[in-house]
């Protein structure tokens, strides 16, 4: 087990270490960036092709009108949850171990939401008419249909994205001021002095900052829960077998937290390695995150069981048929893969020795993410190919390379955004690490004081 953050670390050292991550990148960074750009290139190529020729190139059909895009959309939405939600919850709970990791987790939220939003676009048959879904006043009084869960989705994502960005930004202002004070060349100087808004750390600023941060955090928790509940409503509000399930919203939220935590572990390990943040992203923090992930994994497993059991013992023959199809039909490998990755692999998180083993956790977190992606696909696809109407059942639809290409590219897009972010905004919150160190040292002093007093008292006796 590695060491936790040192209480006696100099604050100036914190600034120095973190600001170093903004300097000229290592070779490895460029490699990752180039790979990400190449992946985005693939997706852009696929999308241009699909845009020009039509969605048919994705191998959609009737009834399989939705494919990987929606599944991956949910995946990215899900991934977005941990960042903000965990950051906000842990902030309210005064869990100080969140402080070194929340910044990149929130960035992850923002960028995965931006990726998810793209999937909504990619999915549309007439992307060029997407503005029809906006509630803009027109002279014809034509409005979008506010009853549609898809519109709720759009609204929820917009709310969540903008709130997350604000949350992230507000939380970064003091750090941006540090950057402004320390980086004096080039475009960055200008950028930081604009972004820092003239922050000087005055008592008035801090006073308002604290209450604002707290308020936004309070808003974000129910918002995050509602966002994934609404994504779940896309399915639960429909009438299709296997989707029309009351427990979908909590199930989706749990799945979202789960995949988000898994993604935090992945990114934690990558950042720690790429930017040499061993001092701040310490193993005890990893351990805490891993334990949290395990707890959520069990919640997810439980909700999964509930869903299966409720379907199995219901009289809804169609839903039952979908479940049987999932477990025994052509989706069986993916279904059982999901069960394995989502419910079996997390038990590896219980092994104490592995909790702080970087390679093991890296592999496990990737598997968990794979499982969560499969989960989303298993929610979307089997219901389509095995709906109410047997005549239209379909066993041959398989996503084409275009679909796979865009899904593949989305990971590159996310990575690209994230890597760029890490070079512009400090991915470890400096001022909060300072706070953490300060409070811990105070606590330690107090403890020492207490021991001294005790000793003195003893001596007096």
């Amino acid at each position, binding site marked *: 087990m590695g060491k936790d953050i040192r209480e006696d670390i100099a604050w100036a050292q914190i600034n120095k270490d973190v600001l170093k991550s903004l300097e000229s990148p290592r070779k490895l960074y460029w490699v990752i960036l180039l790979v990400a750009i190449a992946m985005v290139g693939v997706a852009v190529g696929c999308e241009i092709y699909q845009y020009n020729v039509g969605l048919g190139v994705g191998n959609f*059909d009737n009834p399989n009108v939705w494919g990987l895009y929606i599944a991956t959309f949910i995946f990215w939405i899900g991934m977005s949850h941990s960042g903000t939600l965990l950051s906000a919850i842990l902030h309210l709970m005064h869990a100080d171990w969140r402080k070194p990791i929340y910044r990149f987790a929130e960035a992850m939220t923002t960028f995965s939401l931006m990726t998810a939003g793209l999937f909504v676009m990619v999915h549309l048959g007439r992307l060029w008419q997407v503005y029809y*879904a906006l509630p803009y006043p027109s002279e014809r009084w034509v409005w979008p249909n506010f009853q549609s869960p*898809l519109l709720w989705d759009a609204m929820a994502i917009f709310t969540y994205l903008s709130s997350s960005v604000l949350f992230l930004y507000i939380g970064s202002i003091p750090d941006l001021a540090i950057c402004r004070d320390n980086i004096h060349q080039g475009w960055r100087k200008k950028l930081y002095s604009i972004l820092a808004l003239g922050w000087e750390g005055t008592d008035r600023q801090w006073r308002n900052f604290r209450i604002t941060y707290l308020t936004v955090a309070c808003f974000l928790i129910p918002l995050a829960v509602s966002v994934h509940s609404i994504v779940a409503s896309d399915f639960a509000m429909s009438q299709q077998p296997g989707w029309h399930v009351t427990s979908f919203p909590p199930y989706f939220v749990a799945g979202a937290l789960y995949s988000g935590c898994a993604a935090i572990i992945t990114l934690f390990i990558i950042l720690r390695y790429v930017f040499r943040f061993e001092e701040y992203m310490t193993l005890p923090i990893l351990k805490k995150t891993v334990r949290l992930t395990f707890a959520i994994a069990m919640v997810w497993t439980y909700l999964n069981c509930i869903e299966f059991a409720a379907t199995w013992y219901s009289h809804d023959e169609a839903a039952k048929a979908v479940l049987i199809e999932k477990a025994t039909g052509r989706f069986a490998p993916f279904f059982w893969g999901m069960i394995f990755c989502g419910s079996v692999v997390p038990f590896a998180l219980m092994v104490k020795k592995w909790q702080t083993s970087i390679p093991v956790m890296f592999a496990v977190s990737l598997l968990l993410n794979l499982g969560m992606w499969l989960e989303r696909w298993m929610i979307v696809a089997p219901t389509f190919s095995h709906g109410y*109407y047997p005549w239209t059942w379909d066993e041959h639809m398989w996503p084409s390379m275009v679909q796979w290409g865009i899904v593949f590219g989305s990971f590159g897009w996310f990575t690209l955004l994230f890597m760029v972010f890490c070079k512009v905004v400090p991915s470890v919150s400096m001022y909060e690490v300072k706070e953490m160190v300060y409070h811990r040292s105070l606590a330690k002093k107090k403890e020492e004081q207490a021991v001294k007093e005790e000793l003195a008292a003893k001596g007096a006796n």
Partner: protein
Amino acid sequence: MSVSNLLENWSKFRHTHPVDDKGHPDWEAYPSDIKWAMSIDLDACTGCNACSVACYAENNLPVVGKEKYSHGQAMHWMRIERYWDESAGVGEFDADKGARFLPMMCQQCEAAPCETVCPVGATNHTEDGLNSQIYNRCIGSRYCSANCPYKVRYFNWYNYPEQEKVWPEPLNQQLNPDLTVRTKGVMEKCTFCKQRTYTARNNAKTEGRPVQDSDVQTACQEACPVGAITFGNLFNPESQVAKQWKSQQVELTKEVQDKDEKEGNRLRGYRILEELRPYPSVMYLERVRESAV
């Protein structure tokens, strides 16, 4: 959009359909005395596909070709389904009593699952009881199809008229100018030959009389060699379709038909997936098979 409108007419905005309204024509928000409905006699239907071809001819449906058909991208608004008896168990087919044919098209549900979910409101209920599809408004989210229990909505996966060239010159001259050809990215489906019902309605209105059976036939009905399809205004008690629904004791606004104890179970009218409560507008009459031979 105005708050005063909202407040003044609040109770009218809170009606549900068709259960609250029971299909009565006098509800103000529903100023129509027409409810188009259909009934299909499966005992007469021979599965010959004439209706389907007529639909291609009337509604400018693209012929997608083998490759796209193999991807399930066929655009037949009216499809003929062929079922076998499964006397020996599910999947064990028995041809002794022939096959069962079922023409399936949009059921024009009164409480259509597709309507609520469209993000842009491209599919709505019309005042004459149809489930409309506004091609211009559609952005292609395909949620309607996802939520359709019958899977009778067809999506334009490609730009059939222009890029795929499914109507090479001069085949395009056959296109019916009464309705559009659809471009890629929009959903489409059976309209109960909207262009025909619309004309019929207007003609009747001009002449100041209610719509009669003789005013309009859908293309499928017109072609059907055995006359298995009946179409008309369900609100007009004189129409054949209303008589059939009535005699079969099938009510539009019920999800479980409580048929008459004695005679009801000797009737053969039913609606498909009625229990999901979409209140479909198409009644099917069961196929009859002689047991004496």
